[in-house]
Structure formats: C-alpha cells, structure tokens
C-alpha cells in the first residue's frame, strides 16, 4: 500500500473521528449554550423543595430560562436555599414569585418563575423574596384526612 494512500485514509479517519467528538460535544452535549459562565446567579429560599434536584430546569411561562445550580440548607432559618443560574438574556422583576412545580403527575420537578410588575430587576447574586414550596402529596392527603376526621367528630 502506497504511503500517501495510507496517510490519506488515516487523515480521513482522524478527521471523521474528531468531527464526531465535536458533534457529540456541541450538538448532543450542547456545550455552547449551557456553559455556566453565561448565566447569572440568583437565590431563592423555600420551606420545602420536595424532589427538586441539582440541574433541574428553571422555567418562566414554560420556557426553560436556566438551571438549578446548587441546593443547601440554611442552618439558621432551616430553609432550603436554591441557587438558580439564569440565562443572561432574561431579566426578572424584584417581586418575582419562585415556585416548585411538577410537570404532570410523574414528570420532572422544576422551578417556575412568575414575574410581577416591579420596575427593578433582580441582579446577580440577588434573592427572590416570594417563594412557594413544593406540594408534598403525603402532607396534602394527611391534611385532608385530618380535616375529614375533624368534620366527622364535629357532626356527632
């Protein structure tokens, strides 16, 4: 086999392989748009985050605008402090309400942001003041049962 033919084929092979890695990184792994340097961070404190996990999406009006970057417990207030990384092209007002929602009954847990009418926007490192905790199904059911029991007791 001719030397230059071998070189040509090796060149084609390596170019294809590197192209595949590039494709996997950019198109499949979406390296360009999810890099963390592009987002700004805001915090939100919740009484209960339910099944929220790191890397869960942050949505506003159903549009994904960022990701959950970190979750920690504030040991003085005993609230869960969630750090959200928001895409720079979106700004949210100071009276935005952050709530923990579930898409469908079994779907993924995400953070929903509802903007209000405040003229000022939350800046880098700011905090969402109004939050709504996750609905914990077990609590809801037990509350319902207790209410029913109390009603039944009062009726007699």
């Amino acid at each position, binding site marked *: *086999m001719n*030397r230059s033919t*071998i*070189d040509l*084929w*090796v060149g*084609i*092979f*390596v170019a*294809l*392989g*590197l192209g*595949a*890695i590039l*494709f*996997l*990184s950019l*198109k*499949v*792994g*979406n*390296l360009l*748009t*999810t890099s963390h340097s592009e987002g700004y961070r805001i915090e939100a404190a919740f009484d209960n985050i339910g099944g929220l*996990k790191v*890397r869960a*999406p942050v949505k506003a009006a159903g549009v*994904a605008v960022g990701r959950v970057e970190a979750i920690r417990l504030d040991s003085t207030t005993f609230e869960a402090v969630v750090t959200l990384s928001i895409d720079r092209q979106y700004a949210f007002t100071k009276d935005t309400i952050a709530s923990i929602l579930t898409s*469908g009954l*079994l779907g993924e847990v995400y953070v929903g942001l509802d903007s209000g009418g405040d003229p000022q926007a939350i800046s880098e490192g700011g905090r969402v003041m109004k939050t709504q905790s996750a609905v914990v199904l077990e609590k809801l059911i037990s509350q319902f049962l207790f209410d029913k029991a109390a009603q039944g007791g009062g009726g007699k």
Partner: protein
Amino acid sequence: MPASTIADGLRRVGAGTRRAVTRLGFASRFTFAVLGHSVEGLRRIRLTLREIYFAGALSLVIILVSGLFVGMVLALQGYDILQRYGASESLGVMVALSLLRELGPVVAGLLFASRAGSAITAEIGLMKATDQLSAMEMMAVDPLARVVAPRFWGGVISMPLLAALFSTLGVFGAYLVGVKLIGLDPGAFWGNMQAGVDFREDVVNGIIKSFVFGLIVSLVAVFEGYDAAPTAEGVSSATTRTVVGSSLSILAADFVLTVFMFRGVGV
C-alpha cells in the same frame, strides 16, 4: 489408586495455577516493556500511522453500519416503551445517554476487539511463528519498538475516535427513525437531548471509557500475539484468547468505570 488420582489432580491444579501466575507476571513485565519502548516507537510515526490505518480506518465500515443500526433499533424499542408513559419526547435524550455512556464505548470496543484486536494478534503471532521477530533481534532491531509499540498505540488512538463515530451514527440513526419514520417533533427530539446530556458528565466520561477500552484491547492483542506458541495452532488459539479475553475485560472494566463515574449522578 484413588490416592494417586487425587495427587495427580492436585499436581495438575498446582501446575495450572503456577502457569497462570507466571503468565500474569510476564504480562506485567511485557506491559512495562511496551510502555518503555513507546517513545522510541512513536518517534517512528509512520509505523503508528500505518497501524491506525489498519486498526482504525479499515474498521470504519463495520463501526459506522453497526452504530447506525444500533441507534435505529434503540429508537424503535425506546419509542415503544416511552410512549406507554407518554414520554415519547424523551426519545432523543434516552438514545443519546445510552449511546454516550454505555453502548458507544462498549459495543465499539467489542467490535474493535474482534475486528482489529484479532488481526493484531494473528499478525504478531505469525511473525513470531515465522521467526521474523528473532530475525529482527539479530539485526539489533528491537521488535517491541518496531512491531509491538506501533500496534499498541495505533489501537489506543483509534478506539476513542471509533467510539465517538459509533455514538454519532447511533444518534443519527435514532433521528432517522424517531423524526423521519415515527414523526416526532425534531425540536423536541434535539431540545430534550441537549437539555439532558451534560458535556462533562456524559460526553467526557464516554470518551474516557473508550480510551480505557482501547488500552485494554490493544494490550491484550499485542500480548497474546507476542506470547503465542509459534505454531499454526498456537496462533489460532492466541487469536481466540484475544477476542474472549479482551471482550470480558471490557465488560468487567465497564462495570468498574460506571460505578466510579455515575454513582453520584442525580443525587
């Protein structure tokens, strides 16, 4: 009578164990020798390029075709299961994650072991059987640097590229079946895939896996060839041992790597 049979059996077990341990020792010494001769071997880059051609470029067809079909089958099967839960939009992310994390490196590694590993073993074994290796030594050419190291590095370099091509063609096959055949929305297909696949966690870990598998297959292949009994029978059994040994090692190493890479995901 029974006493001598037992003694015979014990002797055989002992001899077998000793042979296995000696072979392991030789394999370790051989590994270090190959790594030690790597710089010398890589300096003759032409030889390594030639091996990349034989191990990598000539494996392209089987890798590309298998990747395409694996991706298409994954999409068909995945769609059937996902749509029962009303989650058929997640087809893209399911296929991409299965390919990047597991199927790409593992299946490409298994194919590479049988396509290229066996060829490397047979070639080195036959060179040994026809005294070419001894002839080289007599001409003061070290066969480890001239023959073994280029084949080893040719395999190590080719394997991650082949695995990446396998995954890429798999994703493309899933796109063909999912979007073109079944009629899923292409936006949801790619969007969910991009949202669910992490570069560091999935793409890089997959490449690390395929690199490790490349090391395993190449090392087993050159070792079995170098260690082959210099007969036609010896070469054929060495080739078999390469395919069996490297396939099993890939699967075992895959388990270990997966435990280390993905145990903390999502927690």
